[in-house]
């Protein structure tokens, strides 16, 4: 009998879901006990369309090739002391934030997709989830290896995983992913594959990484672009998952819509850190946050993606309009937080140079000079006894119960004030930075009343290396617990700056 001719899709089915079978010695529910409680209804897993057709051997081949290229570039950079050719050591503060904040999330995504690969009852999406789990481990490791070289010469890189578990601003990314991995497998994959990968990672991995290239950091650009090329597969998976769930049963539509609403806002708030990195921390800038937002969110997501989802009865995320309104404020709000609390952070900040302020004013003609330049001007007047002598916010901030960012988001309708919301639940008050975060809380209050809020934890005495000897010893004991060494304070009093000057002092400056 002659072999029949199969299409690529049919062949791929045999390579993947064809391996699956219906168990008879145990019930399927015992193998996949987490598949039903979220209320998602699947009529036929066979309707799943594979977003890409990658077999394991092709995966090994292409991924090994990608990594071969990455490590060749990284080794070249190390051998040539490439860090000396960065635009400026200030640039690295954005990479510190990345390594402390994002890299551990890649790791959590790796374990999260292992959960998907183990617990989704559909063999097709389980397979795609597995490849993503592998990819995310890759991202963790190439980022750690790129960071390792900088760690040898600069502060802020030495304790990323420990800091991620402890330091106040890192509870923002950590709580985001903790939220996703504690959800069921369907919510997880909608949250991460769809809302995060499809809607938001572009902002981080494309314009920001282009900024890395522009500032002379080829390893970061390479891991960024190379990681994002994996994300292209992940985006395809995310879109496929959402469409599949929507097509399976009409009862899934409101569930998915609520997840999109929740995870849009969760992800958007997380991405605000990138806004500050792009507009303030890159000495040479490619694109402003606002421009990136318009391109990647307004054009590609709203005008592109959500037009495609209309036919399923899905509308754009609930609080999208607020994020659009915030686009001219956001990066400034966030940098102003980071600037104020640098005394307790493992990166440096600085007052933008006059040229940088002009760039900001040009990119944000309706907000920067009006609302933010005056803050920096006032900061120049204020003296504090801390290193650098400049203004620091010498207190602890009120944090949003959901996103955990200090409640510092400007109200575009009342730009002299921030948005403040609160609600009472079971006799306790909870505060929020936005209607989006408040809405998320009200939907699942039992989740967010558990939040490990760094400010409250400090006040409970849970964040001291040793009990403070007096009021002046409180912050130092917290910093020791964080393992913040000489990583904090203004850039211009940092060891990074001192070393950078030293390393470049007898180098000829060539102006081209």
């Amino acid at each position, binding site marked *: 009998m002659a072999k029949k001719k199969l299409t690529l899709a049919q062949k791929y089915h045999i390579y993947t879901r064809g391996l699956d079978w219906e168990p008879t010695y145990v019930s399927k529910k015992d193998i996949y006990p987490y598949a039903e409680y979220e209320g998602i209804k699947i009529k036929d897993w066979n309707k799943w369309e594979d977003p890409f057709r990658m077999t394991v051997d092709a995966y090994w081949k292409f991924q090994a090739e990608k990594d071969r290229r990455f490590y060749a570039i990284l080794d070249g950079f190390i051998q040539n002391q490439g860090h000396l050719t960065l635009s400026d050591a200030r640039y690295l503060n954005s990479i510190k934030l990345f390594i402390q904040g994002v890299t551990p999330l890649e790791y959590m995504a790796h374990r999260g997709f292992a959960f998907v690969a183990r617990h989704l009852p559909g063999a097709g999406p389980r397979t795609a989830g597995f490849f993503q789990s592998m990819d995310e481990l890759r991202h963790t490791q190439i980022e750690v290896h790129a960071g390792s070289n900088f760690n040898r010469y600069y502060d802020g890189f030495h304790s990323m995983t420990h800091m991620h578990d402890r330091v106040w601003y890192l509870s923002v990314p950590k709580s985001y992913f903790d939220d996703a991995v504690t959800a069921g497998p369907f919510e997880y994959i909608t949250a991460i594959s769809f809302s995060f990968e499809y809607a938001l990672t572009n902002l981080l991995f494309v314009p920001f990484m282009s900024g890395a290239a522009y500032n002379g950091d080829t390893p970061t650009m390479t891991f960024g672009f190379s990681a994002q090329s994996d994300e292209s597969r992940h985006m395809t998976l995310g879109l496929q998952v959402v469409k599949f769930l929507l097509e399976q049963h009409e009862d899934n539509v409101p569930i998915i819509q609520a997840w999109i609403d929740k995870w849009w806002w969760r992800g958007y708030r997380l991405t605000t850190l990138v806004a500050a990195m792009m507009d303030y921390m890159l000495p040479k800038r490619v694109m402003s946050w606002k421009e990136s937002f318009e391109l990647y969110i307004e054009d590609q997501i709203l005008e592109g993606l959500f037009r495609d989802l209309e036919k399923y009865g899905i509308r754009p995320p609930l609080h999208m309009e607020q994020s659009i309104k915030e686009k001219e404020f956001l990066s400034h709000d966030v940098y102003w937080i980071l600037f104020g609390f640098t005394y307790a952070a493992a990166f440096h900040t600085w007052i933008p140079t006059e040229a940088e302020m002009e760039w900001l004013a040009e990119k944000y003609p309706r907000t920067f000079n009006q609302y933010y330049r005056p803050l920096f001007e006032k900061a120049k007047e204020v003296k504090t006894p801390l290193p650098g002598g400049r203004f620091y916010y010498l207190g602890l901030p009120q944090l949003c119960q959901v996103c955990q960012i200090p409640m510092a988001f400007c109200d575009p309708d009342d730009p*002299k004030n921030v948005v403040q919301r609160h609600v009472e639940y079971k006799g306790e008050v909870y505060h929020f930075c936005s209607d989006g975060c408040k809405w998320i809380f009200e939907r699942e209050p039992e989740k967010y009343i558990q939040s490990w809020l760094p400010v409250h934890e400090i006040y409970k005495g849970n964040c001291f290396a040793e009990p403070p000897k007096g009021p002046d010893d409180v912050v130092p004991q917290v910093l020791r617990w964080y393992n913040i060494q000489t990583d904090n304070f203004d850039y211009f009093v940092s060891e990074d700056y001192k070393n950078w000057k030293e390393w470049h002092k007898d180098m000829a400056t060539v102006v081209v």
Partner: protein
Amino acid sequence: MAFGEVKALYKYEFEPRDRAEVFGDDLIVYAYWIDNRFFCSASAWRVPKNMKWKDFVNHISSLYGLDPDYKNVKKWEWYHFDEKFNPQDDKTLVELGLRHKSIVKFKPA
């Protein structure tokens, strides 16, 4: 206000991590200077329930005094959450009606 329930494989209920009793005789109180974004967000303080109002104001001035405009203000207008209120200097925080995670807001009168 209708609150939702977390879908879970068991009764998903927990004690709030920062509930009032955890702080014993103290309260968390937030302070916010209205119309002034020099302080990026409201501040958070752990203070005794029976702290006198004037001591509280003095306590938070360690932060707000950093703003050169602070010392020029002769009189402040106060709000508890969004309600205007008139705290007397010698009353304690609880006597004034403050509770755990209250926010007091102020601006020059």
